[in-house]
């Protein structure tokens, strides 16, 4: 079953081979050669280190805020917590719905929006990441609490414990483990988000990467990528050591004021002087069906690539696990717009190319999920099949991929709405659609259109969520949210 999405790779490959042109091959070669000879110019390195600490700071700060806010909101969203305090639960259900739009809109879109509202300010990026992440964290926490049904709660309550004491003694400990690993994962996401925001001009290493790449200075690009890779490696090591993570957080916060302008932002709000007439005009002048259709197409194609590639690679490489992990790390490392530009050097622009750029990046995430799943799942079945005389590949297919296919696909569905949000970033390769229109509207300061596009995005994501929720119930599996 996890191989099914892989079938879509065939038409994609076909289309790509038609669009292939060798014109930029030497540029691509230069790019990869530069990987081994990053620029070591001390001035550049110093500025990169500065930039990477800005990125880290944005990520850590927004991670802390979103973990804290998400924690509180998550408790408020949980029906079980509401029941514990004697409420009926409708408030928490409503709060959950109320938070959905915040999750629905990509941090990049928030970032560009806040940039317009607050101007250049360190809080822009921090707030942009915190907002969707808090809402996401709240949902994950609420789901985790509500999906457990520990009987200890009743035991403690009937013994005279207050609702709050019961919360701290019975409800929190049982969700702590999952919460901890999830929040560790969120830091990794926050770093990648901060880099992406940088690519779109909110500062930090993403900005340096984007500007270097746009001026085709590959050696400088690679200095940045290596610095970033080191950061991600260190954070990944720390993922399982929360104490150290806290220390890193505190240290990077201590250096906060020198790196980011975190003064209180002043609102300059052009959004307020908008007339109904402008809204109507924007509504009529925009080809909505085409934009939404294009966005959905790219999303679905990218998702199938992201979901289909990792199992395929598993079958191709079998035991070479470290090779695959290197590949997944590389996919995650390079921000989507950079992948897109690199692909453009050798392929003609098309929506398929946009989907490939997105799909490759997210296959890095899916790949890691698959490896984690494989690690947790025993290989006994595969060994049994091998002893029955099955071939290496079919043993892996039935014995190892089989058991994990449901949670893996369920996670793929969750990924679908992340990818939908990410379509905003591939405008340049012909993956036009809502995202590109939004960036153009922001550049034209066309607020009426910006507002409408944001609404369209929110509506799409929420309906996507409904569909994926429905599919998950139909398949009888719940995504282990990560």
């Amino acid at each position: 079953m996890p191989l099914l999405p892989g079938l879509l790779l065939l038409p994609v490959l076909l289309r790509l081979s038609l669009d292939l042109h060798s014109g930029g091959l030497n540029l691509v070669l230069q790019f990869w050669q530069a990987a081994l000879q990053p620029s070591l110019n001390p001035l550049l390195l110093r500025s990169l280190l500065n930039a990477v600490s800005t990125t880290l700071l944005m990520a850590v700060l927004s991670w802390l805020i979103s973990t804290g806010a998400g924690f509180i909101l998550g408790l408020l969203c949980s029906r079980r917590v509401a029941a514990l305090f004697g409420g009926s639960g409708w408030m928490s259900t409503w709060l959950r719905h109320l938070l959905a739009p915040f999750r629905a809109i990509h941090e990049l879109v928030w970032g560009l929006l806040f940039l317009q509202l607050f101007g250049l300010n360190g809080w822009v990026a921090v707030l942009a990441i915190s907002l969707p992440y808090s809402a996401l964290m709240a949902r994950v926490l609420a789901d985790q609490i509500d999906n457990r049904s520990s009987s200890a709660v009743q035991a403690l309550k009937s013994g005279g414990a207050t609702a709050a004491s019961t919360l701290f003694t019975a409800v929190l400990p049982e969700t702590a483990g999952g919460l901890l690993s999830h929040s560790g994962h969120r830091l990794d996401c926050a770093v990648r988000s901060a880099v992406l925001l940088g690519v779109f001009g909110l500062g930090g290493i993403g900005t340096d990467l984007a500007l270097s790449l746009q001026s085709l200075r590959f050696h400088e690009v690679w200095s940045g990528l290596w610095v970033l890779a080191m950061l991600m490696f260190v954070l990944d090591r720390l993922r399982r050591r929360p104490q150290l993570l806290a220390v890193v957080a505190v240290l990077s916060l201590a250096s906060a004021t020198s790196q980011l302008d975190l003064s209180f932002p002043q609102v300059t709000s052009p959004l307020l002087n908008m007339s109904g007439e402008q809204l109507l005009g924007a509504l009529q002048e925009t080809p909505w069906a085409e934009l939404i259709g294009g966005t959905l197409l790219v999303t679905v194609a990218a998702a199938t690539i992201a979901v289909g590639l990792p199992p395929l690679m598993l079958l191709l490489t079998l035991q070479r696990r470290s090779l695959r992990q290197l590949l997944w790390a590389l996919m995650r490392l390079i921000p989507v717009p950079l992948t897109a530009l690199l692909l453009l050097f050798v392929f003609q622009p098309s929506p398929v190319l946009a989907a490939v750029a997105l799909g490759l990046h997210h296959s890095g995430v899916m790949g890691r999920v698959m490896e984690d799943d494989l690690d947790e799942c025993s290989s006994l079945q595969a060994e049994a099949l091998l002893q029955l005389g099955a071939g290496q590949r079919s043993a892996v297919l039935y014995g190892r991929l089989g058991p994990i296919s449901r949670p893996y696909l369920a996670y793929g569905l969750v990924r679908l709405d992340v990818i939908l949000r990410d379509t905003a970033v591939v405008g340049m390769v012909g993956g036009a659609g809502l995202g590109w229109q939004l960036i153009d509207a922001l550049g034209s300061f066309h607020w009426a259109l910006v507002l409408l596009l944001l609404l369209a995005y929110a509506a799409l994501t929420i309906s996507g969520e409904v569909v994926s929720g429905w599919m998950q119930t139909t398949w009888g599996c719940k995504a282990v949210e990560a």
Partner: protein
Amino acid sequence: MPAQQSKTVAWSCLLAGVALTAALFGCSSTTPGGDTTTLRIGAIPDQNPEKLNRLYDTLSDELSDQLDVPVKYVPVSNYAAAVTAFRSGSLDLVWFGGLTGVQARLQTPGSQVLAQRDIDAEFTSVFIANGASGLKPITSSDQLVQLKGKRFAFGSESSTSGRLMPQYFMKQNGISPDDFAGGRPGFSGSHDATIAVVQSGAYEAGALNSQVWDSHVEDGRIDPEKVSEIWRTPTYADYHWVAAAKLDQRFGEGFTNRLQEALIGIEPDTERRRTILDLFGAEAFIPAADGDYVAIEAVGRELGKIR
């Protein structure tokens, strides 16, 4: 382990809370909107970051010496961000492109154009084509119609020379963005990238800043077999310095004029000044006024980039 975890979670929360509060207090002690005694300069990011830093740090030193006020370069990394930063008062003097400068002035009452480079009064864009595209050099603008049905790349979406003016000249000759292959043009993100994607063949043609093109040609970084210039647009006014309102109130009577004079007075007489002019690719800065950009504003409005 899980019991250990719950402990750890609690401790990390506690630590994080303390750190966060400390950070917030630390931040709130800095004055809102930053230091008002420092002149903050910025620029739209149309070059590689290393060059931008070198260029504007040198310029900051020069201006600081000339005007006797602290000058700080604040890097901005996105065209729209520069406009917003200027509007919100985070930047006092910004090197804008034609379109972004007009956008910024319209959104920031009281701001004014100070100066441009000698080359900016008569700036041009070039149209380039891939060798295999079959596109021929254009002698008069009505031949632009041969671009219909081709894959065409602009640079950044808010660039004057890389998008606005090329699109305007095409429109005058009856070509709209949906006439290109795929129903829309591509946006490479920068002038350098436009050359790269056209040279590689991903796009058959593109338009960019003629200054960038010329410097590529001079440096021999262009393979004439693969990519060549097919047309140069008529001239228009582009890059310029825009100063915020109320600088006189903050830095003393007549400061805006002194600022303008300092910019215009940069001549290649010292090492530092030579570096500045060299990095800007100009012989000198010349006075400019709001009126020089009326035409750009009209084009911007016509193409929907100014509302």
